[in-house]
């Protein structure tokens, strides 16, 4: 069982730069073909400062910290037994190449179903840009199959 003491656990803020090459690689890996995700001229013509990060990319920014699975390790969660149960994003402003995004997260709940056979961890994240603007919020629900 995951110790419920971890509810409220805050993962310290980390800041990551949004890189053009990485955005293009991501866009390619998901089969995106719209030129605004590859060509800065096209992105600017569409009203973005530079290449926009695709809608789910903010999730990837959190994985850029030094040891992205450290929090899970410290909660005793085995990666091989974990699945993504739910994921949601609320968008407030675009994230573009060149931005420095600061991400923080908090474990907002841990609960179980089926007599503990399934345990759920709910994490809420905020992402702010270099101007301190809240650009996105996200919620990630992980399920551990015990």
């Amino acid at each position, binding site marked *: 069982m995951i110790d419920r003491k971890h509810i409220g656990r805050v993962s310290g803020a980390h800041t990551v730069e949004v890189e053009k090459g990485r955005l293009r690689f991501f866009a390619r*890996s*998901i089969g995106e073909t*719209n030129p605004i995700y590859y060509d800065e001229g096209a992105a600017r013509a569409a009203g973005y400062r530079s290449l*926009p990060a*695709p*809608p789910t990319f903010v999730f990837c920014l959190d*994985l850029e910290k030094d040891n992205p699975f450290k929090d899970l390790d410290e909660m005793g969660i085995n990666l091989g037994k974990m699945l993504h149960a739910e994921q949601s994003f609320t968008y407030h402003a675009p994230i573009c190449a060149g931005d420095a995004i600061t991400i923080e997260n908090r474990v907002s709940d841990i609960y179980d179903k089926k007599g503990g056979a399934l345990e759920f961890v709910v994490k809420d994240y905020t992402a702010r840009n270099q101007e301190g603007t809240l650009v996105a919020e996200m919620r990630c629900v992980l399920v551990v199959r015990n």
Partner: protein
Amino acid sequence: MSTVDFETINVGEAVPSFTTDPISRSTLALFAGASGDHNPIHIDIDFAKKSGMDDVFAQGMLSMAYLGRLLTNLAPQKAIRQYGVRFAAITNLNDRITCSGKVLEKFEKDGEQLVRLELTAANQTGDVKLSGQAVIAVAKN
């Protein structure tokens, strides 16, 4: 750039769907690198077997990114207000994912005209892998 006129689209109406190429091991390896999700369960068959799985399987976020393309095909990305999914089943190797959606509701909030879409990602046999919703602002002409 919008392929759908949200001002005139009706509740219940479907938006244009698409189907991906089959998901290969290369797809998973490239997405692991591009997304930064290096969880070996998706790229290392030895690790997957040790964890009790028959083989590696797709990152949930890969299918969510595919389904996100349905949204960015429809509307400027800046118009997307919310996007969320529940992962209903594991997406396997060789699955071809069909991303589809329909209008659930049209409403106004904080002076903005919004459309709520119901979203589904399913494989070639119709097994639903992701179900979700998105809220998109209607572009003003």
